[in-house]
């Protein structure tokens, strides 16, 4: 019984990531896609909060979207795992429901 939350917005531009993180239940998963992956870069303003949340909820980032934006896997906040589209499908299938923070 867990929710897969998807966030597709830059946390620097919009409040979607913050709102998502404020509404997690224990064991939920967060997947950063599209401009949402911009949050995942080490050294950015959201690195700390993602690191903190990552201790209780798993956080993923979509690798094709990282690559498009020039973010190397080595540059990610520690604990964030990458998936491709197939991994996205697996996460959605394994969760009980998917909640998009548009």
């Amino acid at each position, binding site marked *: 019984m867990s929710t897969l939350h*998807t966030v*597709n917005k830059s946390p620097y531009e919009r409040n979607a990531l913050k709102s998502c993180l404020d509404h997690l239940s224990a064991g939920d998963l967060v997947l950063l*896609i*599209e*401009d949402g992956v911009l949050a995942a870069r080490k050294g950015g303003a959201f690195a700390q909060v993602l690191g903190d949340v990552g201790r209780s909820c798993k956080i993923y980032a*979509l690798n*094709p979207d990282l690559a498009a934006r020039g973010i190397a896997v080595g540059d990610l906040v520690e604990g964030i795992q990458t998936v*491709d*589209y*197939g991994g*996205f*499908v*697996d996460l*959605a*299938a394994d*969760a009980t*429901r*998917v909640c*998009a923070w*548009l």
Partner: protein
Amino acid sequence: MRFAIQINEGPYTHQASDTAYRFAKAALEKGHEIFRVFFYHDGVNNGTRYTVPPQDDRNLQKLWSELAESHKLDLVVCIAAAQRRGILDANEAKRQGKDGDNIAPGFRISGLGQLIEAGIESDRMVVFGD
């Protein structure tokens, strides 16, 4: 597993349709079923055959039409959203007194009930938007 997909944005302007397409393709490759893809809001603009994207870019309408053909996907364009945005099939064009239509192959126009039904009949609803 049976997925349903909702797409809220048109092609190119937002990445939503790209991501949804790649998600759908990956799900089918893994043997999952896609019960329906429902195009809502500006998402209806994915279903016009009048687009001519630059030759060095992807053609999202064609990608969807081809995926629909090869996997018997049900691509539904919301009628209310389509009316606001100028997506017509032959029936709608006739009914509204318009002189032509622009719906792309593999897409069909239907009501919002199809979205609710998709939510009821699928195991997972996944929404892509702005």
